[in-house]
C-alpha cells in the first residue's frame, strides 16, 4: 500500500503550492553564500549583491567547507540548500591563493546544477564610495536596464555564457506591464578584452527633452568591479533542451486567412467553395415529377377534375345555407 503524505494545514499546503513548478514562472530567487575562506573584498561584494537583490535573495553567513561547485561530489550541499530555500540561482564566494576573490555564479534546474560561471573580482568599488544625490538612488525591486557593450559578448563562449547568467541574475521578474515612472537603474557590462568584463551599476536620471522620450542620464552609484572569467561549465545539451521548453499552450497559434492592413485594418479572407447549381439535387421531388401522380392522372384523368368541381359547388351551397 502506498502511503500518501498530504499537508495537514492550509498554510503548509499554500507553501507547497508556492514551490510547485508552474506554467509561467514568477521570478528566480538567489542564494548567496561563501566557502572556507573569504577576503574583505569578497565579503563586501557578496553583501552588495545581496542589497541589490534584497527582495528575492537569501544570504547565508556561515562558511561552507564542503562546497566545491566544480567538483563531482562538492555540489550536493548546494543542491540541498537550493531545495530548502527554493532558490535557483546562487552566488558562491571563496578566496584562495590560486583563485583570489573568486565568485561562482550558478543556476539550477530542478534543484540540480544546470551551469556555472567562475569569475574573479578585481578593482572593486563599493556603493559607499560613490557620492551622489540621494534622490536618484534606485529603489529595491525596480526593473533594470541592461547595456552590453563589446564584440566579446558575441564571439567568446565564456563571455556569452556570462552575459546570459548576468542577465538572469539581475533582471528581476518578467512583467507584462511596466510603469515608466519607475525606471531608475542600469547595469552596464563592457567586454574590455576576451576575458575581462567591466561591470557597473548606474542610476538613471530622466531629463526633459523636446519629445515624449526623455533624455537619459547615467550616474554611477552602485558597485563597480572587473570580472575576469576563469572557468565555466555549460549545461548538458539534453538538459538545456528540456529547460528551454515553453508550454505548448503558450505558443501563439497563427490565425489563418487574417491579415492586417494599415489603411483598412483587419482583413480576413473567406474561401467559398464552388456551388454547382446545375448538378444540385433537391431534397424533395417536385409534385409533377412523382411517378404515381403521373400514372394516376393518366388513368383517371377527367374524373378527377369533375370531382374537384363538384366538391367546390357543394362547399359553396353549404356556406350559403349557413349564412
Amino acid at each position, binding site marked *: 500500500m502506498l502511503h500518501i503524505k498530504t499537508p495537514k494545514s492550509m498554510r503548509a499546503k499554500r507553501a507547497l503550492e508556492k*514551490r510547485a513548478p508552474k506554467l509561467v514562472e514568477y521570478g528566480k530567487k538567489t542564494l548567496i553564500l561563501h566557502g572556507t575562506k573569504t577576503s574583505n573584498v569578497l565579503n563586501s561584494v557578496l553583501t552588495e549583491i545581496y542589497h541589490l537583490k534584497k527582495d528575492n535573495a537569501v544570504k547565508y553567513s556561515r562558511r561552507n567547507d564542503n562546497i566545491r561547485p566544480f567538483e563531482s561530489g562538492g555540489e550536493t550541499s548546494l543542491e540541498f540548500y537550493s*531545495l530548502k530555500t527554493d532558490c535557483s540561482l546562487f552566488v558562491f564566494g571563496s578566496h584562495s591563493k590560486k583563485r583570489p576573490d573568486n565568485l561562482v555564479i550558478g543556476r539550477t534546474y*530542478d534543484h540540480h546544477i544546470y551551469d556555472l560561471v567562475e569569475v574573479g573580482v578585481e578593482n572593486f568599488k563599493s556603493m559607499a564610495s560613490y557620492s551622489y544625490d540621494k534622490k536618484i538612488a534606485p529603489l529595491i525591486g525596480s526593473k533594470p536596464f541592461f547595456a552590453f557593450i563589446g564584440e566579446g559578448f558575441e564571439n567568446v563562449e565564456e563571455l556569452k555564457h556570462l552575459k546570459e547568467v548576468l542577465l538572469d541574475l539581475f*533582471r528581476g521578474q518578467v512583467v507584462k506591464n511596466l510603469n515608466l*515612472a519607475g525606471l531608475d537603474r*542600469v547595469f552596464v557590462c563592457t567586454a574590455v578584452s576576451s576575458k575581462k568584463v567591466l561591470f557597473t551599476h548606474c542610476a538613471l536620471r530622466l531629463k526633459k527633452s523636446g519629445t515624449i522620450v526623455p533624455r537619459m542620464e547615467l550616474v554611477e552609484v552602485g558597485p563597480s568591479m572587473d570580472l575576469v572569467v576563469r572557468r565555466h561549465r555549460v549545461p548538458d545539451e539534453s538538459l538545456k533542451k528540456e529547460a528551454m521548453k515553453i508550454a505548448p499552450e503558450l505558443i501563439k497559434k497563427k490565425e489563418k486567412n487574417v491579415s492586417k492592413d494599415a489603411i483598412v485594418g483587419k482583413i480576413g479572407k473567406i474561401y467559398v467553395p464552388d456551388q454547382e447549381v446545375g448538378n444540385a439535387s433537391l431534397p424533395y421531388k417536385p409534385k409533377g415529377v412523382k411517378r404515381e401522380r403521373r400514372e394516376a392522372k393518366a388513368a383517371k384523368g377527367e374524373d378527377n377534375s369533375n370531382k374537384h368541381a363538384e366538391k367546390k359547388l357543394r362547399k359553396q351551397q353549404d356556406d350559403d345555407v349557413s349564412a
Partner: protein
Amino acid sequence: MAEQQEGYQIDLGNLTAFDPQHQFQSIPDKREDLVKECITHATKLIQAVADSLFSLPSTEDASGPIVPLPQPTTKLPREKPLPKPAPPTKWEVFAKKKGIQNRKKDKLVFDEQTSSWKRRYGYDRVNDDNDVPIIEAKMTDEPGVDPFATRRSEKKQRVEKQEKNRLYNLKEAAKVGALPSHVQLAATALPITGTQAAPRKVSKDELQNVAGMAGTSTASGGKFDKKLAGEKPPKHDKKYRKFLPVVEGSGMGSLEKQQTDKILNKLMAKNSHEIFNVSKAVDMYNVKSDKKRRNQQGKSSAMSSKLKVKKSPYKNASKGSSKKGGSSSKGKSGSSSKGKSK
C-alpha cells in the same frame, strides 16, 4: 527587438541593449577614463531602448504611464520543469460522458424539519445521518436487523469507496508524473521535484574519484569490492607503511637498531626527568583540588561561591611552589585520598 541602424540588438522584454560591434581600439590607461567611456556609450544604448519603449501605447495610471511590454527575445532557462497536465479523474470522465455540469452549491440549505437554514456540511448540518431518532420499519425489513447499524455500515462503505477512488486517481496521476503539488508519495522518499532530469555526463577521472571515495568509506576500505571488467585497481590500495631493509648493510647505519633503541628509551626511562613532568603534575593536582573545593562550596552557598572561587588561585600559587619539592609523595597521597573519598 528591432535592429537599429547603429546595429544595436534591443530586447524590449528584458530592457536590454547589446552592441556587438563595438571595439575598444585602445584601452585607456586610467580606469576612470575607461569607465567614463563605457558610461557614455551605455547612455547611447539606453537612449535607443528608451526610444522604442516610450513609443509603445501607454495607459495613464495614478503612479505613472503604464506600458505593455512585449515578450523578451533572449530565452532564459526555466528553473523547474514544465508541469504535466493531470489525467482526468474517474468522476471527470463520467461527468463528461454524461454531460453533467458542475454547479456551485450554497453553503446554507433550508432544513424542512426545523424550518431553519442549516449548513450543508459540518457541525449542525442538514440531513445529518446521526440525528434521526426513529426509523420506521418497512415490509422488506427482516426482524432482528438493526437499521441504525445498517445505516452506519452503508456510510462506511461509501467512505471506503471514495477513498479507493481517490487513491486510484492519485496513482493514475503519479503514473503520468503529474501528481498535485501538495501530495507526496512516501514510498519514494525523494524531495518534491519534477521529472528526474538526466544527470550530466561525468568524465572518467571524476567517476574514478567518486568510486574511490565510495570504496574507502566502506568497512573493509574497498579492498573486497567486486570490480567490473576493465576497472582499474584503486590508486593507493596499499597501506601507508614503510618497511626497513631486511639485510642491514654497514652503509645504512643499522636503521632497525636505531628504531628499537628509540622505543626502548621511551619505555625504560633512561632520563627520568623527561618522563615525569613535575610542574604539569602540580598544575593538575591544583586544578583538581580547586574543582573539589568549588563543588563543596557551591553546595553550601551558591551566592558566595563566586567570590571564593576568585580568591583561590592566589592561595594555590603559594601552595604550589612549596609543594614542588615533595611533589611525588603529595601526588600519591592526593590520589590515595581521592580513592578513599570515592
